[in-house]
């Protein structure tokens, strides 16, 4: 009797998990209904498509690079130190996650119309409707997330390791790169991959700040949007499939990093 109940419970829970899987799989498989037509192959080899793929890869990588450069030290600070305003800082990291990407992009547009924003554009780099705008928008979207994820990886490493390394003669920098960094490397790598994937798929903030100009600021998600807007279904599907392919690859990458060898 009790066994029956336990089986019921088990099958209900697993059933729910299988439903989610079928739901997403069906969605992806439905794309293939349109695969193979002449328009499909044309779209795949079209220079605009290739451009948007390349643009997405480059922009996401640069945005991730900057997010790590600033995010890793920030993550370390949040993980290890107590300082004034830490709670507020930590909360602020969530801002890009809770506000709509389009609002984030719009905020940038507003900023670049302030005297400071204009000064930066006139004396430095042009962001609005330019490639740096893509990178900036993606960076803004992922910097908080990357910091949070990296902080979680660093939190897993006991500060005791650094304490011992310090007592044995390491400076704080040495203790960081000889002990903490190698110990948290897999976690950090997974964080970076996830942040990159998020940048790669970013749409709202990018399109608002950098626009949707083919062969200039058109990333893959933007290209999907414009393809749909002009009823070019084949092109949209090509791009979606590629996006899904990259997405699955990154997820697989994260899985690989998760297979850590047992430390202790």
């Amino acid at each position: 009797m009790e066994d029956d109940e336990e089986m019921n419970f088990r099958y209900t829970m697993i059933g729910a998990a299988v439903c989610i899987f079928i739901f997403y799989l069906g969605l992806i498989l439905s794309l293939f209904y349109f695969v193979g037509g002449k328009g499909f192959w044309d779209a795949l080899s079209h220079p605009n498509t290739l451009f948007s793929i390349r643009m997405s890869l480059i922009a996401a990588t640069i945005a991730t690079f900057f997010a790590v450069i600033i995010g890793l030290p920030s993550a370390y600070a949040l993980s290890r130190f107590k300082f004034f305003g830490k709670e507020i800082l930590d909360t602020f990291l969530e801002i890009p996650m809770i506000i709509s990407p389009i609002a984030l992009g719009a905020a940038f547009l507003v900023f670049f119309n302030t005297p400071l924003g204009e000064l930066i554009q006139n004396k430095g780099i042009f962001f609005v409707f330019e490639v740096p705008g893509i990178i900036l928008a993606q960076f803004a979207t992922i910097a908080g997330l990357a910091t949070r994820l990296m902080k979680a990886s660093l939190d897993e490493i006991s500060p005791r390791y650094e304490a011992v390394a310090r007592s044995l003669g390491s400076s704080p920098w040495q203790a960081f790169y000889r002990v903490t960094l190698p110990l948290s490397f897999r976690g950090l790598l997974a964080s970076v991959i996830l942040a990159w994937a998020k940048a790669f798929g970013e749409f709202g903030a990018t399109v608002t700040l950098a626009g949707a100009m083919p062969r200039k600021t058109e990333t893959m998600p933007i290209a999907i949007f414009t393809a749909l807007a002009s009823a070019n279904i084949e092109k949209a599907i090509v791009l979606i499939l590629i996006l899904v392919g990259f997405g699955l690859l990154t997820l697989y990458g994260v899985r690989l990093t998760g297979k850590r060898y047992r430390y202790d």
Partner: protein
Amino acid sequence: MIKIEGLHILFDTFKIIDLNIQIEEGEFHFLLGPTGSGKTLILESIMGLRKPRTGRIWIADREVQSLPPERRGISYVPQDLALFPHLNVKENILFGIKARDLDMKTYEEHVYTLVEVMRIDHLLERYPAHLSGGEKKRVALLRALAPKPKLLLLDEPLSGLDLSIKIDIQHLLKNLHSAFHTTTLCVTHDFEEAHSLAHGMTIFIDGKVEQVGKRDDVFLRPKSKKVAQFLGAKNIYRAKVLKNEESSQRLILGVNGLLFSIPISSYQDKIEVGKEVDLFIRPEEVMILREDKPVKDSLKRNVFEGEVLDMTDKERYHLVYFQTTEGRIPFEISIPNYTFRNLNLSIGNKVRIALREESLWMMS
């Protein structure tokens, strides 16, 4: 010599006020305090990982409180050991020598001796995940000792080990210390650990130092009831000083109508007649007399009759619970197993106990 002077630490709920510790060159010193009394905090302050409010620290006559941890010449073995999991045993051991950029050649022999003493030569290529609890302890100790520290800090080195490994590591610590004479400060809450290894000790309760002294001074002659109780003392009695016998140089104390005699020479301060004090004797210092043998002179003054109430086998010794017939004063008595067998005791036996005068201790 290691000197810690006027250390104040305020951290979260911890409050450590005016901590003073002095450790002689080559001494194995214990900082004993209850769990959660902030002992690790003190170690971290000595190491330089935490900034105390005030306080000065000297290590081998060099004032270090403004130096970063890596320049203090201290090695630290935390409770969880923190062996670097991404490095093998050999790399762990050499970490300190490499980090300090020391000349490997001058340390090679020292490290080799340590490896021999610790008997871990077969483990050098292994990773910490594949070591047993005892092996990990050895490696952690070796890693700490390899760069020849001026001070070794041990945080609860014997906790969380099986009894046999514990005894093993205890011996090892003793041997290592007699071989290398590394000045050591060890924190623990376990007075039994401290007893077998300590030269000197500092008793630290509720953020304050209660007593400092040589091991036996502290164990046999605690300054207060608080210290005695922390050290696991069982036989503490409220007593009244009844008489000061000038002729025999003895104080006579009364507990529930029974008279105890203690030599006056053990106390520097003058003890007033009529004063209420706490009288204390360690369970190991109480003897059960064999009626077929004569009583030694040193025992004659404090002999009491009573009954065995209960007994427990503690694996390495026996505990006998005894109560005097007159005054009904309970005694906990610890007896080595071989003596216990010779005594042939059973519950309800009428026996006599004797207390060594020098082991009776009075706390005011």
